[in-house]
C-alpha cells in the first residue's frame, strides 16, 4: 500500500509531464509541416486531457487513453489550405516548454520532500 501511496502522490505531475511531451510532439509536427499544402494544424486541450487522465478510476498511470486530437481554427486562411500559423505555433511551443520544465521542477521538489521524510 505504501508504494501505491507514493505512486499516487507523483501521479498528477507525471501525467502532466506525459501530456506535455505529447503536446510538444504535436506542436513540433505542426512546425515541421508549416509549408505542406493542405496540412491541418492539430493540438490537444491540455486541461481536459489532464482532467481525464487524473480522474478517479481513469486507470493506473501508463494505461491512460490517448487524448483526443483537435484541429486548430486558423485566424487567417491561406491559399494552399495549410492552417499552420507560425507565430501561434511558436508561441505555444515556447509556452509548452516552460510548463514542461515547471512540471519537472515540481516533480523534483516532491521527490526531494519525500526523500527527506524517508531519511529523517
Amino acid at each position, binding site marked *: 500500500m505504501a508504494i501505491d501511496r507514493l505512486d499516487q502522490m507523483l501521479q498528477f505531475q507525471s501525467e502532466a*509531464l*506525459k501530456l506535455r*511531451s*505529447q503536446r*510538444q*510532439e*504535436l506542436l*513540433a*509536427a505542426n*512546425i*515541421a*509541416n*508549416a*509549408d*505542406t*499544402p*493542405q*496540412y491541418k494544424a*492539430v493540438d*490537444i486541450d491540455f486541461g481536459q486531457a489532464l482532467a481525464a487522465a487524473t480522474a478517479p478510476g481513469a486507470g493506473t498511470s501508463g494505461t491512460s487513453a*490517448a487524448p483526443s*486530437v483537435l484541429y486548430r481554427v486558423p485566424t487567417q486562411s491561406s491559399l494552399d489550405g495549410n492552417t499552420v500559423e*507560425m507565430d501561434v505555433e*511558436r508561441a505555444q*511551443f515556447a509556452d509548452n*516548454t516552460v510548463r*514542461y*520544465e515547471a512540471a*519537472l521542477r515540481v*516533480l*523534483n521538489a516532491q*521527490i526531494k520532500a519525500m526523500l527527506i521524510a524517508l531519511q529523517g
Partner: protein
Amino acid sequence: MSLFNVFDIASSALTAQSERLNVTASNIANADSAAGPDGKAYRARQVVFQAVPGQESNGTAKVKVAGIVEDNTPSRQVYDPKHPLADAQGYVTMPNVSVVDEMVNMLSASRSYQSNVEIMNTAKNLLLKTLTLGQ
C-alpha cells in the same frame, strides 16, 4: 517517450527543407542557362511537400518531399539575333525561372530550417533536464 519523436519529426522537416533549398539553388544557378543537356532551355523545378502520418495514430505527422515537378510556366523569349541559339525570328528561348520567386523560396526554406533546428534544441534541453529528475 514522445520527446524522442520530436527529433524524428524535426529532422524530417530539415531533410525536406534542405532539399527545397537545393532545388532553389539549382533554379537560381540556371536562371540564364539557354541550353541544358538536351539542348533545350532549363526548366524551373519545384518540390512538392507531403505530410506523412506517424506510426501510432496520435495526430503527429512528419514531412517528406513527395516529388520534384517541372514548373509549367512558359519559357521566357528574349530577342537576340546574334545569339547562336536564336530562331529564325531572332528569339532565344530562356529558362522559365523567376529569380524573385526563387529568392522568396530560399528565404522561406532557410527560415523553416532554422525553426526546426530550434525545435530540436529545445527537445534536447528538455530531455537532458528530465534525465536529472530526482537528483
